[in-house]
């Protein structure tokens, strides 16, 4: 059944090529084609995750390949939701490399015959891990639009009317999109932490154990809280908000990477 994942990865790659071409040529027809390919890939991807879920009898995030695969699925989902709502050529060209890369990586390191640890055989894993990856995916887009913002701002201030000036989205929409995904990500991450705490109380008897992943996510959560606070206060320039979004994403990568202590089952 791994071939379904291969098919998904191939379709993602073809979609990526179309998006890059659409971004380069500014031809909306390629954006639509890319969206079609990604939709096809997403269906395969979803089928694959369901299949893994049924055969292994657990939610597919219990080891590294599974979680990479699931993370790619989350970004793909967010990408499609965003593309249906906003017509931004640059979105696919920068999101799909991440999606294709993660899908391919998960397929390369795929392990057959995996048994999940006892602690993960709980209903909480669905909610806790689902919201966590959704948050990561949303924060990725916050980061991406922050980068677009900074580049476009530099081009506009420097009066460089070159390739990126023409091909990246306008300034304020970048800021708005970055903010929108920030709120989605923040809500999802809050749910992750709350559900994690409740689950921890059931599994280990304590709500908070200060294990590395818990601590890292608390730091990340605080960075984004700070960002939201200042965005809403209106005392900040969008540029500074963009820098903090990038810092927040760096913190996300750390959070994703630390899997010691109680989270040491990946």
């Amino acid at each position: 059944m791994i071939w379904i994942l291969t098919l998904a990865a191939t379709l993602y790659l073809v979609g990526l090529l179309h998006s890059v071409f659409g971004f380069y040529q500014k031809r909306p027809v390629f954006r639509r084609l890319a969206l079609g390919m990604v939709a096809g890939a997403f269906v395969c991807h979803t089928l694959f995750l369901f299949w893994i879920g049924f055969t292994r009898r657990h939610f597919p995030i219990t080891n590294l390949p599974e979680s990479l695969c699931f993370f790619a699925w989350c970004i793909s989902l967010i990408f499609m939701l965003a593309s249906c709502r906003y017509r931004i050529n640059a979105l696919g060209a920068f999101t799909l490399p991440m999606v294709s890369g993660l899908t391919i990586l998960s397929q390369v390191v795929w392990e057959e015959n995996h048994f999940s640890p006892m602690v993960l055989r709980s209903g909480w894993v669905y909610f806790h891990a689902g919201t966590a990856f959704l948050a990561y995916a949303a924060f990725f887009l916050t980061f991406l639009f922050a980068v677009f913002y900074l580049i476009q701002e530099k081009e506009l201030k420097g009066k460089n009317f070159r390739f990126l000036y023409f091909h990246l989205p306008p300034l304020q929409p970048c800021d708005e999109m970055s903010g929108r995904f920030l709120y989605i990500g923040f809500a999802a991450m809050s749910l992750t932490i709350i559900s994690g705490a409740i689950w921890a109380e059931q599994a280990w008897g304590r709500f908070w154990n200060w294990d590395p992943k818990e601590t890292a996510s608390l730091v990340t959560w605080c960075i984004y809280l700070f960002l939201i606070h200042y965005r809403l206060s209106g005392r900040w320039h969008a540029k500074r908000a963009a820098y903090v979004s990038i810092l927040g994403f760096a913190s996300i990568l750390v959070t994703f990477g630390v899997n010691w202590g109680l989270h040491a089952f990946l």
Partner: protein
Amino acid sequence: MSNLVVVGLNHRTAPLDTRQRAAFDPERLAEGMRELSGIPGILEAMILSTCNRVEAIAHVAGAPSGPDAIEAWLSDSRGIPRAELRPLLYRYEDESAVRHVFRVASSLDSMILGEPQILGQVKSCYASAVDARSVGPWLNHLLQAAFRTAKRVRSETSIGEYPVSSSSAAVELARKIFGELSGRRVLVVGAGKMGETAVRHLTESGVGSISVVNRSAEAARALAERFDGVAGDFSRLGEMLAGADIVITSTGAPEILIPPPMVEEAMRRRRQGPMIFIDISVPRNVDPGVGAIENVFCYDIDDLSSVVEANLGERLRAAAAAEKIVDQEVRAFSDKIRSLKAVPMVREVQGRIEDICRSELERFLKKGGARDARQLRELESMMSRVAAKIAHPLLEELRHGDGSRNETALAELLQQLLQPRKGKP
């Protein structure tokens, strides 16, 4: 043997003065087309007359004589001596004529590459040609194909996306900052002509409100009225800045009217929301230091022209893609022309084969005849099947030949071969 030809002059071949003399009054255009299509040897004709080009597009009976006749007529009717006119004219025939018409309609041959007016001009000239009944099937096909090509070029390339006038460049810059302009507040400082043009472009893009500030309150009110805006007092400029997203300055004042501290104060009041200043006055009215403030973008007239220059570069890139579309359409049209040309020949050849079959059938019927009506029907249908089977490959070759063979020669040969031989029945 008939041909499509284009004879004319444009901004590249002829100076403005000659172009003006050669141009047709819109009222005289239909009459000219009727006259031209009435000349022996010219089967269909239309004239495209704009300020940058005057050209006759015609379907003529013969290749060298047709364009010559058009040239002579142009010279006579415009009152320009032939010796003077001749070196300014270009001539295109067949495929190159088709390509030329397609490129003109798609604005690839325009003085300002990609400008959208030309398609409308071609359409209106064609409409008067239709009214004047000077066009027939060939030019109808040609112009429909030209409109289709132009439409494809518009929708499949980004050639029209990049504005190339300064005032529309100002709108583009504002779009690059705000995205959609609906609901944006515009402040116009000064009541100059250039400012007004920029404001008109902005209102066309759906900006929310317009306020005008001017030293002379009278002129401010007049301008504000024209755009349904409000006029403000010049002393309140600083205050009004806080409520504006897009500021256009176009005054005759020789000094800086908007210094950085004024903008900083405005930014504090508007909670740091982005602002764009377009300063079209010379000398400048907005201190260039304003552009250094966070979230404030300031452009002067030189910046607008570098946007225009960059946009022209993008149009050139898009034009390369457009040429490919033109190539495809020219190829498709040449196929169509070939089958159009083949129609009379095809009829001739088909008629000959059917004649042979019919005369053989008649001979048979005269000799003995069919036993009954059913057999007669069968014989008739058999003969027509035979005729169709012989004719089919020949006709296909005539209609869709790959262009490497001379289809006309082939048709002539077929007709000769199928002639009834003298002395034989």
